[in-house]
């Protein structure tokens, strides 16, 4: 009643003058009405197709490689199959979670941690180190080693138990703190890496072709880096085998991403949401496999 007596608060006057109206900030893009073309329904969860094809490609290539057809000689050892199957399981888990995201309308807080669950098969099978391979010019300019091991940040517990990764002498910081007794947190870094990579891709969902296009660009750069490193180190070395492993995962990813982009480029026919989340998981996995290349280095 009081409101009725008082009446609406006068908000006109100055704001309605043309000069002040022009000074107002431009309208948000979300408040602009769409066009007629935007009224058609766009099917979602089309990422199921590239995700399933990606898994099939990995499985077919695993068979070819195991039979020796890919290399023309002997197939890989059992450790290679363990790592490869872990990558396969992680991708399948991520694809399932991406589809569940489409169907169940999962809150964003849950979406943040879901890739961590999907990374579990990879984390369980992962036994390598964590480090950064510096570019040559940076290593030459700074005098740092070409490979900087970061495992000492979280593997104190393992070293205390005598089962940790050996620190390269040139990578050990001069004033490293005395390691406190900590619970085993080594897997947490890998989980955090996968969560970061998956969300770095998935956060761009919603713009036609942006998610798949980003995966295409990053994937081609990773594949090129792998091949350049292979050419420099040779496929028989431990580093070369790691790069080859990464390449076998990245090439099918590039192909199915191009297939998705075929339909997802503006104006998009489909929403590759499931594929976007799956692509993110695969991206995280690829990054993890990039680190996998350093695993045999520690055993040398």
């Amino acid at each position: 009643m009081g409101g009725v007596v008082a009446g609406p608060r006068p908000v006109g006057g100055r704001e309605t003058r043309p000069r002040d109206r022009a000074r107002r900030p431009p309208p948000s893009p979300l408040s602009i009405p769409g066009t007629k073309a935007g009224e058609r329904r766009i099917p979602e969860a089309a990422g199921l197709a590239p995700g399933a094809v990606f898994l099939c490609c990995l499985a077919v290539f695993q068979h070819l490689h195991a039979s020796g057809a890919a290399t023309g000689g002997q197939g890989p050892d059992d450790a290679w199959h363990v790592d490869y199957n872990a990558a396969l399981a992680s991708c399948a888990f991520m694809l399932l979670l991406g589809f569940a995201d489409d169907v169940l309308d999962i809150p964003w807080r849950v979406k943040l941690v879901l890739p961590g669950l999907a990374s579990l098969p990879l984390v369980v099978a992962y036994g390598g180190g964590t480090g950064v391979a510096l570019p040559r010019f940076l290593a030459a300019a700074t005098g740092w080693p070409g490979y900087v091991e970061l495992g000492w940040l979280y593997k104190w517990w393992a070293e205390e138990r005598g089962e940790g990764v050996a620190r390269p002498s040139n990578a050990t910081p001069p004033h490293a703190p005395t390691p406190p007794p900590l619970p085993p947190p080594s897997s947490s870094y890998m989980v955090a890496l996968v969560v970061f990579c998956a969300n770095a891709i998935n956060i761009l969902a919603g713009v036609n072709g942006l998610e798949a296009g980003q995966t295409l660009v990053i994937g081609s750069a990773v594949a090129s880096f792998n091949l350049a490193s292979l050419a420099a180190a040779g496929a028989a070395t431990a580093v070369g085998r790691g790069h080859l492993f990464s390449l076998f995962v990245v090439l099918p990813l590039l192909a199915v991403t191009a297939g998705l982009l075929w339909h997802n480029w503006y104006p998009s026919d489909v929403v590759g949401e499931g594929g976007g989340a799956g692509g993110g998981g695969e991206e995280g996995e690829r990054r993890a496999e990039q680190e996998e290349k350093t695993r045999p280095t520690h055993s040398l």
Partner: protein
Amino acid sequence: MAPPADPAATRHATVAVLAIAAAAFALAPLPRCDHETQRAVAVSAVVSLAGFFATRALIPLVAARTLRAGLFGLDINKKGQWRMEWEGWWRGRGR
């Protein structure tokens, strides 16, 4: 006057050029690798190429079924509108 280009054809040509460029960039260092690596990468590339065509063919089938199941969204389709609004605001600023 030339007829307007088919949007789908233009889109597919763009993606084809992008995919070929990405593949060329990815495989550029391949000639410097040894024979065994080249063979393994070639086998993986053939499997991947089959995956590309399979994905391209499967997506419309999956899309039709997800649409039938009620899994769809609306493309707000505002390409270019933001710029037009901004320019209109900018032109009217000094009045």
